[in-house]
């Protein structure tokens, strides 16, 4: 694990270049350019608004700006997670010519998918910052939690990407499984709704390591409240464990990559 990280630090220029390539290609190829990064979160947010409107009809409670702001705040990290995992899973198989022809730490591929998606999120954040005040959100000290929460999110996502990229190289149908799971995972993750709607069952929802992060972002940015530290700790532990075991798994399979790709 330490070796792996040291190797990555030694090859940081390569990680930078591969990420730069991904970003460059993604923005060069699409006519929409930068709009691309904003599109997914907008779609997710709109879906969330529809769900909320429907829910408020049933419950009789009016929707507030904070509700919609909350969806936006959760939509961005969710879009990041989905795109990183989608690109990350195929990052090794998609770069087969590099994997079989040139020697360098292959961890760079899944990690660059994460960084590329992080860049997309970075593009979308200013847009969100412009919109949020209209939803009645005021700057609060609790927003200082955001960097920590994002760090946990990145570690969690990277762990999954690393493990799935290696697995997909040996079993090519992993990517279809990932696609299907990602499509429906939004129902099991409090993105469009808050975990609290599940009432006494909400702690089951919170077992999903993404849930505490998203809920934490919602409370620190929108509600101006401190996130639930117990759940955040839980998320952080799961993420670090996943990241660590992902790297161990990846490194164990790495010698066989070139023959299996």
């Amino acid at each position, binding site marked *: 694990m330490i070796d792996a990280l040291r190797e990555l630090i030694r090859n940081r220029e*390569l990680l930078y270049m591969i990420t730069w390539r991904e970003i460059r*290609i993604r923005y060069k*190829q699409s006519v929409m350019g930068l709009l691309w990064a904003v599109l997914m979160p907008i779609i997710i947010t709109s879906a969330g608004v529809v769900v909320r409107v429907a829910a408020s009809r049933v419950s009789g409670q009016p929707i507030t700006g904070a509700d919609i702001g909350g969806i936006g705040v959760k939509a961005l990290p969710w879009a990041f997670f989905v795109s990183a995992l989608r690109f990350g899973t195929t990052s090794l198989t998609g770069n087969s010519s590099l994997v079989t022809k040139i020697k360098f730490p292959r961890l760079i591929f899944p990690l660059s998918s994460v960084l590329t998606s992080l860049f997309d999120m970075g593009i979308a954040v200013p847009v969100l910052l412009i919109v949020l005040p209209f939803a009645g959100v005021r700057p609060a000290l609790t927003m200082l939690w955001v960097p920590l929460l994002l760090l946990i999110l990145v570690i969690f996502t990277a762990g999954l990407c690393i493990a799935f990229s290696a697995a997909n190289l040996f079993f090519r149908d992993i990517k279809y499984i990932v696609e299907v799971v990602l499509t429906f995972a939004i129902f099991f993750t409090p993105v469009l709704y808050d975990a609290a709607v599940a009432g006494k069952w909400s702690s089951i929802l919170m077992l999903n390591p993404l849930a505490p992060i998203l809920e934490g972002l919602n409370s620190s940015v929108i509600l101006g409240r401190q996130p639930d530290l117990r759940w955040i700790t839980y998320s952080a532990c799961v993420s670090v464990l996943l990241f660590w075991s992902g790297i161990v798994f990846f490194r164990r399979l790495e010698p066989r990559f070139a023959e299996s790709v």
Partner: protein
Amino acid sequence: MSEYALRMNHVFKRFRRGDQHDSLRDLIPSLVKRAVRKDRERALAPHEFWVLNDISFDVRRGETLGIIGHNGAGKSTMLKHLSGIMVPTRGTIDVTGRLSALIEVGAGFHPDLTGRENVFLNGVILGMTRSEVKRKFDEIVDFAGLEEFIDTPVKRYSSGMFARLGFSVAAHLEPDILVIDEVLSVGDFAFQRKGIEKMRAIAKSGATVIFVSHNLQAVAEFCDRGILLERGSIVADGPTDQVIRRYLDTAISHGERTVRGPVRIVATSITGTGGEIGRFSAGNKARIKVLLEASASAEKVAVVIQLFDAAFYDVFNTSSERLTHSPVCLDAGQRAECEFEVDLHLGAGTYYLGVYLYRYDMEREYDHIFPATSFVMTTDRDTHGAANLYPVVTRFEALSETRPATLLAPGRSQG
């Protein structure tokens, strides 16, 4: 520092032939099958073989080593081990110094990025730092001769331009050990020359160069030492000329056999009318002899010969039938000999001869051996290409009156 740049100690690599599960959907039924029918499955266990079988050799610093062998002898696998892309099943590989491997020109180039962007990307992928690439950028572009196209996406490049840029990046790596696989077969002739010159300069600067190629001529020209690989083992190691000769000698017996029919090729030879073997000058006459033997009675056997150049491009083929010679019918145990006389109007290089036994009316192949033998062509003129047209410059002088260029015939070639 050690006197060796690279040492391989008893390196083995196991490959699996046949079924490999690469989807979960296949894996699950096969696990079930294996659980249900344990014994039978073991009898049908997937075939494994050694693609590298006990390989040991040392390369001194500054040495130029050529690795030759037939297709499937394990050359590329060996390079992938040298460069660390693959890991041996058993044995160790010690590398001293910075090793750069050029397994494929322009691996990692992205079609949508410009030449400039790809130079940076590829340079870093191959192990340079960005500041190194920046420093050498002009040199790289200049060497490739692509100044005007450097800001064009490489998808608009011709394959030659693409290869030139790729080679140029790799040639500016300044490694201690340079491993090259077949990459000089790219680009036009002038650039190939330039590439060989560059490699020579790299070798002269003290770097160790390991070179794999089908192009025996290039290997002979460039390497001090050769290694001949056969089915994953080293069968010859020594001065390049000797190793190449050994390779040519064994070429006959190790051609790939495909069909085992009632009649088979026993021996093939190509001999100059002056008695030359293995090496001919352009314009020589030579006889190709094929000896065949029937194990059971065989009807209407025709002999097909085919010549390939070093890039395995089919430069010539014909057959006894197409030369209006009637096919022969053989009884069990009977032998036949077929002889072609050819004028070798071939360009310089290595050529491989393939032989087929074929029945035309049934479109049936009896036997097939490739390469049955190989030989080297030399020429006294500096020409390139599969054909030798015996060029002579008959006139080249400045004209006294200046004419408008439009009077030149349209479609005149620039080459």
